[in-house]
C-alpha cells in the first residue's frame, strides 16, 4: 500500500474485491477464499516479523481459533459466519494474551523454537483427546450469514468468499494503519536493536507482546475462516508444517507491504492447485524451490518489486545484520 492511500479508498477496494467474487468461476472462488484466509494469518506473521521474530508456531492460535469456534458452534448452535469469525479471533487473542508476555522475552531462533514447541504441545494434546475426535477431528455445520441460510452451494461459496475477503481486507487496512503508527515504527526499531529501544524508554517486551496478540487475533480469525471453508477440523491445524506454510507466505511477501501478503497468498494457492493437478507429490518440492528462489533473488519479498525505490535502505539494513552476527559470536 502506498503511503498516500486513504483508508476510505482502501475500504472501497476491499468492497470491490468482494463483489468481484460474483464474476469469478466456482473453482477460483474457493481458491480465493483459502488464499484470503491464509493471507490473514500470514499478515499476523508479517506484523510479528517486523519486530524481528518469526513465529514458527502460528498454528497454535490458528488451531485455537478453529477448535474454539467449532466447539462453541456445536454447543450453542451458532452458525453465523461473522460471529464465528469473531469468536475465532477472540479465542486466538485470549491465548495470545495468556502466552504473549511469556514468549516475548525471547528473540530470533529461540522465539521461533518456543512458538513451535507450544504449537506442538497443543497438537500432541489434541491428537490424544478422544472427546475432540483425536487425530480425525470432527465436522461442523454449514455457516449462515445474518439469519440467511444458503442452500445453493454457489451462493454459500460466495458468502464465504465475501466474509473472508472483507475480514482480511479490513485486517489489511488495520495493518497499514499499524505500520504507520508509533507502535509500528517502534516495532521496526526493536527488530534492529531491542536494547537500544529499551534505552530510549520503550519496553521492547511490551511492543513484541502487543504485536504477538494482534498476530494471534488474526490467526484465530483465520482458523475460524478455514474451519468454515472446510467444515471440518483436525489437529493438523496445529502441526508445525501448517505453520511453516504461513511463514512461507510471509517470507514471500516480505515485511514492507500489506498488499504483497495477499499477492503472495494467492500465488501460493495457484501454485498449489496447479501442481496438485499436473504434478502430484511434488507440491512441496515446488514450494521449496520457490522459497529458495525468493530468499536468493528477492530477499525483501515480492513487496520489494513495487516499493524498492521508495525505501533506499538496502545497504543500511545490511549493516545491523553484520553487527548482530559479530555480537552472536
Amino acid at each position, binding site marked *: 500500500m502506498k503511503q498516500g492511500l486513504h483508508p476510505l479508498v482502501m475500504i472501497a477496494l476491499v468492497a470491490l474485491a468482494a463483489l468481484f467474487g460474483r464474476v469469478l468461476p466456482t473453482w477460483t472462488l474457493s481458491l480465493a477464499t483459502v488464499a484470503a484466509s491464509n493471507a490473514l494469518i500470514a499478515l499476523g506473521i508479517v506484523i510479528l516479523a517486523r519486530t524481528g521474530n518469526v513465529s514458527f508456531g502460528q498454528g497454535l492460535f490458528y488451531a485455537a481459533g478453529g477448535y474454539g469456534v467449532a466447539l462453541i458452534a456445536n454447543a450453542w448452535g451458532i452458525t453465523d459466519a461473522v460471529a464465528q469469525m469473531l469468536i475465532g479471533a477472540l479465542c486466538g487473542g485470549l491465548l495470545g494474551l495468556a502466552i504473549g508476555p511469556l514468549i516475548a522475552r525471547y528473540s530470533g531462533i529461540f522465539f521461533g*523454537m518456543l512458538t513451535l514447541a507450544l504449537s506442538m504441545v497443543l497438537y500432541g494434546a489434541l491428537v490424544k483427546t478422544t472427546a475432540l475426535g483425536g487425530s480425525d477431528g470432527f465436522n461442523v455445520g454449514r455457516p449462515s450469514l445474518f439469519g440467511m441460510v444458503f442452500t445453493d452451494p454457489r451462493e454459500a461459496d460466495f458468502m464465504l468468499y465475501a466474509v473472508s475477503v472483507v475480514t482480511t481486507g479490513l485486517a489489511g487496512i488495520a495493518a497499514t494503519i499499524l505500520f504507520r503508527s508509533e507502535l509500528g515504527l517502534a516495532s521496526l526499531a526493536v527488530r534492529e536493536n531491542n536494547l537500544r529501544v529499551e534505552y530510549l524508554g520503550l519496553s521492547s517486551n511490551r511492543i513484541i507482546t502487543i504485536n504477538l496478540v494482534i498476530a494471534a487475533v488474526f490467526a484465530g480469525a483465520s482458523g475460524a475462516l478455514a474451519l468454515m471453508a472446510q467444515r471440518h477440523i483436525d489437529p493438523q491445524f496445529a502441526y508445525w508444517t501448517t505453520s511453516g506454510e504461513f511463514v512461507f507466505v510471509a517470507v514471500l511477501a516480505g515485511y514492507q507491504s500489506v498488499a504483497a501478503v495477499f499477492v503472495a497468498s494467492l500465488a501460493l494457492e495457484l501454485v498449489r492447485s496447479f501442481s496438485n493437478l499436473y504434478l502430484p507429490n511434488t507440491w512441496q518440492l515446488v514450494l*521449496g524451490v520457490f522459497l529458495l528462489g525468493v530468499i536468493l533473488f528477492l530477499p525483501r519479498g515480492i513487496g520489494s518489486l513495487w516499493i524498492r525505490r521508495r525505501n533506499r535502505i538496502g545497504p543500511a539494513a545490511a549493516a545491523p*545484520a553484520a*553487527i548482530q552476527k559479530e555480537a552472536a559470536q
Partner: protein
Amino acid sequence: MNFFLTIVLDGLIQASWLFIVALGLTLVFGVLKILNIAHGSFYALGAYVAATAVTTVAAHNLPPSLGFAAMLVCVALIASAVGLLLERGLLKMFYGRDEVVLLLVTYAVFLILEDGTKLIWGVNPIYATQPYELFGNVEFAGLYYVGYDLVLIPVSATIGFLVWFGLNRTVTGKIVLAVIHNEEMSVSMGVRVKRVYAFAFAFGVLLAGLAGALTAPKISMQPGLSSDVIILSFAIVVIGGLGSVEGAAVGAILVGLARAAAVHLMPQAELFIIYLIMAAVLMFRPEGLFKRETARRI
C-alpha cells in the same frame, strides 16, 4: 521394580538413536550457527537408503549381516556426499545473512527433500526388517528384548564418545572448537573456516543418516517421518543447549525416558510431554541446560 526397569531400558533405547540425530544437529548449529530444519530429512534419507540397501542384499539371498554392513556403508557414503553438496552448493550462498534466513533456507531444503524421497521411494510404507533379528532376543532381568535394540545403546555411546574425543583431544577437533568459539579469530590464525564448515555440515548429515540407517530395521519408512524426527531432535538440543555435545546426550536421555515413562504410565501424554519439557526449559533456562549465557554487543 521390573516396571521401572522396563521404562529405563525403553527410554535408553529411544535415547540412543535420538542422541545420534541430535548430536548432528547440535554440531551443525555449533559450527555453522544454522538451526537445520532439514536435519530430519537427512535422517529419513538415511532410513530410506538403508531400506533399499537391505532389501537389495536380501533379494540376492545374501546373509542379513551383510545387509547390515551394506546399509551402513551406503548411508555413510550418500549422506556425506549429500551434506558436502548442499553446503558447498547452497548454504554457502547465505552465510552472513540473518539466522532466521538460514532457518528458512533449511526449511526449503526440508520441503524439497520431503517430496524428493516421495518421488524416489513412493508414499507407501517400506520395511527393512532383515537385520532386526541379527542379534537374536535377549532375556534381561525377566524381560525379553530384541538384541538389536540393546546393541543400539553401546553403539550410540561409542559414537558419542568418539565425537567428544575427536573434538577435545585431537588437533582437528581443537580447530573445530576454535571455529565454534570465534570464527574471525580462527580465520586470522590461518584456519580454513570454509573447509571446517563443509566438513562439519557433512558430518552432521552423516550422523543423521547413520541414525536413520540404524533405526531403519525397527520402523516403517513413510512420509512424515522427517517432520516427526526433527521436532524430537529440536526438543533435545534445545533442552541440552544448542551447540553442546553433553547437552545433546542429557537431552536425549531425558526425552527418551520421558517418552518411555509416558508410554507406560500415561499414554495420552506421550506426544506433548516432550514439548512441554522443552517449553519449560526454554522458559527457565533459554540457553538450555548446558550452555552458558554469552554477552552480546549493543
